[in-house]
């Protein structure tokens, strides 16, 4: 096992950045943490839970996929050698699950090529990063089990470095990474993990809601109606979700005879996403669309690999953090459970160990 001192991390990142684009946490002037191209000055280790997951590295908000020229078109598949540093385990699982979804039946070269060229450095969580974290419920944290290149565990003035792939061992070859006793390091990691798990509350309603949807698929209409009535259709939940990958394709004319075909993020909460050419919409109300979105997280995920996760929600809690009217997965799961319990009361999750 290796270890790296925190004060030499910037030097390591600089070395890594010489060969590839490094995406790393940055502190903005206003104090927010964002993932962006590594910058020595604004680099931060105080990551907590960044407001956006790193999904745009593999699935950009908007991307040219074809260029049309006078007599034909050419596919544009782009991907540069990239390293994403400091991903949280939940977000890392989101990347893996999204890739699994995107490649489940047809090859999606646009995200696949980026994924193949991307190295991931995961930062294990020592506990909840915010009151809405529930990765222990969704089995997607607080550390990554597989699929990463290296994983860091906080050990005071240093990080313990777990190597997850061959490419990962290539990353730690520099002598800045010190060798340490394997057994002792493993013991430290186990202690770290044990403590972390104990600090992250389990939300039993999530699994409960999954079972209820599975067994009866009779979640009370009233639950969805209540959420549908509230939803302001901003689509924000989809955009901050590590596993939401809905997109739309549009054409942009650049000049006569030339243009771009672009794919960009979309949201299943917009009516037009499911509206058919006839005008018929199988998800004609906000209530039905919200139901569908949550079924995709909690119910329809059995047919593909989700890397050991409970479902296709990775428990980052961002939907609960950012929805202006509090329609987050936690609130939805709790509403499904309490409605069927007959209490009819919709609770707001406010953190704390349950």
């Amino acid at each position, binding site marked *: 096992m290796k270890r790296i001192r925190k004060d030499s991390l910037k030097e390591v990142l600089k070395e890594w950045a010489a060969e590839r684009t490094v995406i790393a946490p940055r502190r903005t*002037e*206003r104090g927010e943490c964002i993932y962006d191209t590594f910058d020595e000055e604004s680099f931060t280790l105080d990551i907590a839970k960044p407001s956006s997951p790193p999904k745009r590295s593999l699935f950009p908000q908007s991307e040219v996929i074809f260029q049309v020229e006078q007599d034909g078109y050419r596919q544009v598949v782009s991907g540069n050698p990239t390293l994403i540093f400091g991903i949280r385990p939940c977000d890392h699982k989101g990347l893996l699950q999204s890739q699994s979804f995107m490649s489940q039946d047809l090859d999606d070269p646009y995200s696949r090529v980026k994924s193949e060229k991307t190295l991931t450095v995961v930062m294990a969580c020592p506990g909840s990063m915010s009151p809405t974290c529930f990765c222990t419920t969704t089995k997607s944290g607080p550390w990554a089990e597989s699929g990463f290149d290296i994983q860091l565990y906080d050990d005071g003035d240093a990080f313990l470095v777990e190597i997850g792939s061959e490419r990962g061992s290539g990353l730690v070859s520099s002598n800045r990474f010190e060798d340490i006793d394997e057994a002792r390091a493993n013991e430290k990691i186990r202690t770290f993990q044990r403590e972390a798990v104990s600090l992250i509350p389990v939300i039993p309603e999530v699994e409960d809601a999954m079972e209820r949807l599975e067994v009866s698929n009779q979640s009370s209409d009233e639950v969805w109606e209540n959420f549908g*009535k*509230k939803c*302001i*259709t*901003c689509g924000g939940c989809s955009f901050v979700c590590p596993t939401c990958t809905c997109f*739309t394709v*549009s054409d942009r004319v650049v000049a006569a005879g030339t243009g771009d075909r672009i794919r*960009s993020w*979309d949201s299943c909460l*917009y*009516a*037009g996403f499911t*509206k058919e050419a006839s*005008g018929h919409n199988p998800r004609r109300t906000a209530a039905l669309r919200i139901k569908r979105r949550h079924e995709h997280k909690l119910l329809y995920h059995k047919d593909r690999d989700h890397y050991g996760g409970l479902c296709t929600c990775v428990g980052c809690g961002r939907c609960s953090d950012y929805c*202006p*009217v*509090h329609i987050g997965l936690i609130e939805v799961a709790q509403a499904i459970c309490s409605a069927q319990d007959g209490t009819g009361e919709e609770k707001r999750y406010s953190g704390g160990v349950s």
Partner: protein
Amino acid sequence: MAGLAATFGSGAMTNSINEMDEAELFFVIGSNTTEQHPLIGSRVINAVERGARLIVVDPRDIPLARYAHMHLRQNIGTDVAVLNGLMNIIIEEGLYDREYVETRTEGFDELKRTVNRYTPRVVEQISGVRAEDLVLVAREYARTGKAMLLYAMGITQHTTGTDNVKTCANLAMLTGHVGRPSTGVNPLRGQNNVQGACDMGGLPVVYTGYQKVGDDPVIQKFKDAWGVGDLDTAPGLTITTMMEAADKGELKALYVMGENPYLSDPDSKHIERALSNLDLLVVQDIFLSETAALADVVLPAACFAEKTGTYTNTERRVQLAYKAIDPPGSARADWEIIQDVCTRAGYPMEYAGPSEIMEEINRVTPSYAGITYPRLETGYGLSWPCPNEEHPGTTYLHKDRFSKGLGTFLPCEFKPMAEPPDTEYNFILTTGRMYFQFHTGTMSRRVGILEREAPEPLVEINPEDARKLGIRDRDLVEITSRRGTVKIKAEVTARVPRKVVFSTFHFHEGPINLLTVSAHDPVSGIPEYKGCAVKIRRCA
């Protein structure tokens, strides 16, 4: 603007958005809040869920009405009668804030005399709002300590717009709901920087910060600041009067920035005639709008992401936005274009950038004196008034005293709309905006997903009216006013009351302002977009 300025001494949202989290009651009139101010609408919904009360006064069954404890659906254009009726009950039942009225206001006796005539029964006849409901709402609004009144274009876009605003202000003062946290009269502005445009003197009667063009000390101050010998002391024209003047040949040149009056102004045929009558039409915009297509000179402007500058939002908060990318082609920031035009016209301007312009704003505008770039570069903006660089900004206005001293009750009588329906034109057309499009679509209609969500103009018609006219959902219908005809598809929905149809002005394919009336408020010049007489039939 004019209504609040007359009553309180300044025209803007009196309170701030965060205060909504503490409010006990919301009185929302003429605002489709969740669709037009979705984040403010969300605050209201969250407040209701934690126990706040919600009263919605709107002819349409807007989404927020689903959360309302009471929804009064007044006849279009009867807001003054409804609000006077509420005050009648509040005075009659002794529910007004006596101490506040005595110490903070003037003109109570006149108010009392006027609203005296608006008994619940009289108001019911005018507005269609049941007398019993009116009583319940009056009591609840008056008795609740932290009651916020929110309004938007449903109040202002009438020939009685200024009266409507004054009457809202009267109601809030009568009950002591001004100058305290989580209360106030809160106009929700319809664009991201319309407050800023007004603050900067984008009105015919004021310089920056509402300093009157005719006041001697103000004139002297600006003469000194700009180094000019003379300044015009006469108020300018409002948009509606500019178009009238152009039509008559009295106005020769028009310089339009970021506006598309050909689609957005009422009675489009009249606008087209007026614009074509000009000797010179200059349009400065980010896209070639319908109006720009008519222009003699088009000046390409930079969009929000291509320029640095400040925006002042609906709660008077000035926020700084940075340039992210270079403007395309020959497009430039508005200030650069204006600077060059002025320089070539013989008044050299040499601002190095937006921050230098802000320094001038700080110097000549007392309410913006402390809102400097260095302060805006950190934090999340500052709300005016902010008189010096140590001042933290103002969350709510009129604490302890109004900007003008005492608040003045300016009672108004109910006046009917300019063009009420008759036997031939037997429907009222009311207009507004929808969630997925913005104004004339110059920007939003270029966005694929927005266009997918709302691709075409629709006219809302009540199911009962539709049945009588043989109109089914999505049938093509012909709507005709005295000024023109528009053919668009019908959306049969109980969202509109009987004998009212609603449509939006986003679509050039169904230019609804061909139909609207140019009759406007005598003070502010706002046209009566919210009501004109039309007839409707199914296209064969």
